[in-house]
C-alpha cells in the first residue's frame, strides 16, 4: 500500500469537462459558484455562519445563495463559533454535510474544542459510527490592514490535529475545485481562503497597483462541477535552481520575487497541507537540491517547521544548502507596520540569495 503515494482523492474527476466554456472569475466568485453547485447537487449540504444569509457574507462569498436555495439551506447564526461548529457536528451526525463559515480565521478559537476534541476525533472514537463531514470555510491571512484580529494565519494549529484536513487554495480555479472536493470529503476540512487574493493575485510589491484576477491564467474557471483532489500539489512553475514550497497568497509573492530576480525556481503550490503531497515535494527537492519554504504565519512551530523537517529527513543527501524558511515574525500581526511584518520580496529575496550563494 505504501509504495504508492497515498494521496487521497486520486480517484475523483480532476479535470473539468473539455467542452466547458472559458470564463474568468475572482476567488470570491469561484467560491460562491462552488457553494451554489453543491447546494444544488446535494440536498444534505447546508451553509451557515455569521452574516452569510440574506446579506451574503462580509466578503460576499455566499451572495445570492439564500435567495436561490432557501432559508433552511443558507442561514445566519448567532455570534458563537463554539455553537456554529458544535451544531455542525450534530448536523453531521444526523447525515447533513454542513459548510459553516467562520467570518475570520482569527475568530475560530472559541470553536477549537468542538473542532479538535469533537469533529476531528469523532470517526476514530466511535469507530466509524459517526463522522463529521463538515467543511469549515474561513478567510485567513493579512495584507489588508486588518490588524491583529483580522489577519492571522492559524493553519498550523489545525495541521497539528490528527483527524483534520487543511486546505488552502491559491487561485480561483483551485478554490472552486478544492472546495467541492472538501465538501464531498467525509472528514472535517479546514478550508482557509487567503483573503488578500480574493479579488486579485498579490505579488507582495504592495506599492505597485493592484492587479485583478482577470489578467491571471488561473482565473479561468470552468462552468459546472469539477474537483481538484485533496492531497495533490500544483506545479506553479518548473525550474532547476531551487524548490519553493508555498501556499495561499505566498505562492504569488514567491513567484513574483523569483521572476524579479530571474531565478529558475521550481515552485509548488501545496494546496493541501494535510494530507500533504510528499511525493511532489521529494521529487522537486531531489531535482533542485535547495528548498525555500514560505508562509505568512508566525515562524515558531509554523507549518514551515514541519516542511523543513520532512525535507531534511527525506531529502538530506540531495540538499546543497540548508533549508530556508521565510515567514511572518513571531509577533501579533501589527496594524501600522503590516508591511514590515509581511514576508515580502526583501525577506524572500535574501533567503534566495542565501540558498544560491554556493
Amino acid at each position, binding site marked *: 500500500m505504501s509504495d504508492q503515494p497515498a494521496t487521497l482523492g486520486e480517484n475523483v474527476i480532476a479535470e473539468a469537462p473539455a467542452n466547458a466554456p472559458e470564463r474568468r472569475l475572482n476567488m470570491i466568485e469561484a467560491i460562491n459558484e462552488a457553494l451554489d453547485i453543491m447546494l444544488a447537487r446535494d440536498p444534505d449540504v447546508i451553509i451557515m455562519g455569521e452574516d452569510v444569509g440574506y446579506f451574503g457574507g462580509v466578503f460576499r462569498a455566499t451572495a445570492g445563495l439564500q435567495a436561490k436555495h432557501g432559508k433552511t439551506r443558507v442561514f445566519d447564526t448567532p455570534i458563537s463559533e463554539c455553537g456554529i461548529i458544535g451544531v455542525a457536528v450534530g448536523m453531521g451526525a444526523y447525515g447533513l454535510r454542513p459548510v459553516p463559515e467562520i467570518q475570520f480565521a482569527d475568530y475560530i478559537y472559541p470553536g477549537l474544542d468542538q473542532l479538535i476534541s469533537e469533529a476531528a476525533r469523532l470517526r476514530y472514537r466511535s469507530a466509524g459510527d459517526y463522522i463529521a463531514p463538515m467543511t469549515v470555510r474561513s478567510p485567513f491571512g493579512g495584507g489588508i490592514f486588518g490588524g491583529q484580529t483580522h489577519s492571522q494565519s492559524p493553519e498550523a494549529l489545525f495541521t497539528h490535529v490528527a483527524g483534520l484536513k487543511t486546505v488552502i487554495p491559491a487561485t480561483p480555479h483551485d478554490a472552486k475545485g478544492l472546495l467541492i472536493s472538501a465538501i464531498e470529503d467525509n472528514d472535517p476540512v479546514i478550508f482557509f481562503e487567503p483573503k488578500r487574493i480574493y479579488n486579485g493575485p498579490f505579488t507582495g510589491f504592495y506599492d505597485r497597483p493592484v492587479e485583478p484576477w482577470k489578467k491571471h491564467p488561473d482565473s479561468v474557471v470552468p462552468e459546472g462541477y469539477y474537483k481538484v483532489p485533496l492531497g495533490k500539489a500544483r506545479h506553479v512553475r518548473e525550474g532547476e535552481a531551487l524548490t519553493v514550497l508555498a501556499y495561499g497568497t505566498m505562492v504569488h509573492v514567491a513567484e513574483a520575487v523569483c521572476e524579479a530576480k530571474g531565478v529558475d525556481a521550481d515552485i509548488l503550490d501545496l494546496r493541501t497541507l494535510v*494530507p500533504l503531497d510528499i511525493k511532489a515535494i521529494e521529487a522537486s527537492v531531489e531535482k533542485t537540491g535547495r528548498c525555500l519554504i514560505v508562509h505568512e504565519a508566525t515562524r515558531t512551530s509554523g507549518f514551515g517547521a514541519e516542511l523543513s523537517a520532512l525535507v531534511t529527513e527525506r531529502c538530506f543527501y540531495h540538499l546543497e544548502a540548508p533549508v530556508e524558511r521565510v515567514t511572518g515574525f513571531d509577533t501579533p500581526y501589527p496594524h501600522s507596520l503590516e508591511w514590515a511584518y509581511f514576508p515580502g520580496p526583501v525577506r524572500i529575496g535574501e533567503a534566495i540569495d542565501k540558498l544560491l550563494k554556493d
Partner: protein
Amino acid sequence: MADPANPAEGNRPTLALHVPEPRYRPGDTADFSHIDIGQPGDQPRPDENIHPSHMAGLAYGLVRVLGDDNQAHGPWNPRLSPNVLRTMLGHMALVRAFDERMFRGQRQGKTSFYMKCTGEEATSIASSMALASDDMVFPSYRQQGILIARGYPLIEMINQIYSNKADKLKGRQLPIMYSSREHSFFSISGNLATQCPQAVGWAMASAIKGDSRIAATWVGEGSTAEGDFHSACTFAAVYNAPVILNVVNNQWAISSFSGFAGAERTTFAARGLGYGIAALRVDGNDALACYAAAEWAANRARGNNGPTLIEYFTYRAEGHSTSDDPSGYRSAQEREEWPLGDPINRLKKHLVAIGEWDEARHAAMDLECAERVKATTKEAEKNGILGHGLHHPFHTMFEDVYEELPWHLEEQAEQAIRERITKFGTERPFG
C-alpha cells in the same frame, strides 16, 4: 494596591471575594432541611405549547409526583401502566447491579476506570423511556441507563469497558464512553458539555429535513458553566430547535459542589428563562416525575413548540468515578440525609402500594439482575480484559483517523508494527 486597613479614598467599602463553600464537609452532620422540596402534586402542568414566560414558576419549584404515602399525586402523574412501571424498575435495578459489578471489576484490575450512576438512575432511564426509540440522545458519561433502557446488549457495554478484542470501539475510548448509532445513542465525549450544541445541531437538522424525530442531551450541573452549554441554549432558542436539554443536578462535580456552577444564586432550570426556553425543575429521584417532564418536553418539541430545559434535582450517591474518594471532600451522611430518597426504592414502594409488586418479587428481580450481569461479565472476559493482550490488531490504531489512510499514518503504522515485532517477535504476543 489598596490597603485593607485603610479603605480606599473617599468612603468606598472594601471589597471581599466570595468563594463558595458547601454546607457540609467530612465529619459534619448533614441537614438538608433548608432545601424547599415543596409537596408532591403542587406544581401546575401547563399545555405543552405554553410560552416560556408564562411558566417561569416551574423553573423554581419542584415537579414531584410520588409522595411519602407512595402514591402518585397531581397533574404531572404520567398515569403509566403497572407493566411500564415494572419495566422501568427493572431497568433501574439492572443498571445498579451493572454499576456494582463494573466498579468491582475496576478494583480487581480488569479495567482502568468506571463511573456509577447510583441514585441518578431515574434521570436517564425514566426520561429516555418517555422518548421514541429513534429519538437521538447525546448523553454525558453518566447515562448508561439509556443504553439499558434501549436494550443495548450488556456484553457490548462490558467489552467496551474492558477495551477487549470484541470492543466495538476498537479499544480507543476510555471505559463507559459508549457509542451506538443503531440505538440512536451518540458517541460520548470526555470533554464536558460539547454534546449540548451537537444535540441542538442534530435537532436543527431534523427540522431542516422535515423529520419527526427529536434530540435530547444530558449534562451535569457543573458542566453548565461551559460555554458550550450556553451556545446550545442560544442556538436552541434562536432556531426553536426540537431538543430537550437535560441538566442532571447531582449536587457534586467531582469535589466541587453545585455552588461553583452558580447554585447559590438560582436554580439550573432558571438558566432557561433568560434564553426564552421552557424550563422545568424536577425531583430527579422520582421516576414518575422524570418521565412526566420528559414526556411534556418531547410533546412540546414534536409539536414544533421548541426546546425545553429540564433540571433533574438529584444526588450523586457515590463518588464521581473510580478515581476519587468522596469521603475526602463531603459528609458521609449526605447520602442518607438526602430529602428525596432513593429513586429505585421510591418506585418499588409505589408499585407495592398500588398492589402491583411485592418484596419477594423485588428480591428475585435483584438476584436475577446480579446473576445476569455476572454471567455476562464472564462471557465478556473471554474476549479479554484491559492490558492482557486481547486487543484489536495494531493497525487499527491508525484507522478511522481519516476515512482513508494518508501516507504519513501508513508509515507510522509500519513503524508501530515493526516496534512490536522487535520486542516480541510477533505483532500479537498473546495471540
